[in-house]
């Protein structure tokens, strides 16, 4: 578990370097990646399905990103991109392809649909949080709170 979270941190950090994030943003982005993976693993341990865990992780990481983007005055993408990478279902993509070339089309379809569902659920999590954030910001501006 600890090794996993540390690996996620390093993986996000590496992607921060590839995407050229600099300064303290880099550390906050890597921490975001670790947080996303931590939530995903905890949720799996609690017996949730893979898709649900993915959803919760995506909500956690995008909430974190929206908050810290406002504190550090930087685009939200800076954090979301680096943190999202570990959760992208690369494994699902690979197994879908592998089953297809070895001739097991039914399994390939099954894994393929699961992979699509994971990717879709990731985006729904981000959409949900960012829409709610926008609504809160508009509400506060409208009523001048």
């Amino acid at each position: 578990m600890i090794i996993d979270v540390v690996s996620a941190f390093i993986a996000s950090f590496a992607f921060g370097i590839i995407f050229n994030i600099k300064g303290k943003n880099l550390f906050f982005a890597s921490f975001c990646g670790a947080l996303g993976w931590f939530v995903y693993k905890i949720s799996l341990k609690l017996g949730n399905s893979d898709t649900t865990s993915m959803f919760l992780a995506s909500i956690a990481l995008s909430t974190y990103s929206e908050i810290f983007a406002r504190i550090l005055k930087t685009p939200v993408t800076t954090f979301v991109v680096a943190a999202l990478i570990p959760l992208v279902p690369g494994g699902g993509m690979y197994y879908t392809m592998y089953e297809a070339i070895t001739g097991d089309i039914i399994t390939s379809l099954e894994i393929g649909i699961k992979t699509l569902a994971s990717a879709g659920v990731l985006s729904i999590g981000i959409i949900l949080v960012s829409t709610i954030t926008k609504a809160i910001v508009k509400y506060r501006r409208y009523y001048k709170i």
Partner: protein
Amino acid sequence: MNINDILHLSTYAGKIMLENGAEAYRVEETMNKISEAFGVEKPDSYATPTAIISSASHKGETKSVVVRILKRSVNLEKIHRVNDLARNIKNNNYTVEEFKEKLKEIDNEKRYSNKVTILFSAIGALSFTFLFGGGLKDAAAAFFIGLIVKFFDIEADKIGLNSFFSTIICSAITAFLAILSIKLNIAADIDKVIIGSIMLLVPGLAITNAIRDTIAGDLISGIARAVEAFLIAIGVAAGTGVVLSFWINTFGGL
């Protein structure tokens, strides 16, 4: 006040942001913010991943300009800097010339050197292998595959190969090296090695931007990015698939 200069200035800022992977709505917002800060009455702009159309109306005079975006890479630091700069025009009382100098400074800023990028790609591949349950030997193999793949990726970028094709080549190399590492007994589990290494090629930014553009209402940009993400994903599958299926069919199994 010269409306021409301001229009070129705002599209220059927009160009920097789009070339480095910003969302469409952020580019439009930033461009309008810059024009407004310098006193243009009615600026308007439309940005897609491949072009910017921008116009400015001021005291009965209307100008417009089209800027094509031909190269696209990812550099989040530049987006952050331009975004920050555009927000603080009024606070810092920039003149048009000063602002142009600042933008040029950002545009010419160096990114992390290729060596550092390659090294961290390798470290990324290593930690992804751990993340997906690979052992120490698998991670070591993924480390070296990451080094080689990122090197090829950067070289392909230099000669201007399109990203779809270079993804196929890179993932084919990944699959080949992974098979090699199994045959040479360096790694134990081929699935983990390949998955760890292809995570470097996964279209993370395209996915994120596709989502963010679509919910911001920029449907054209959203669809364009979604297609990009999908093509890259297909490219990864095709590249690894061709090599693996060739190997299985020729040598009868992995």
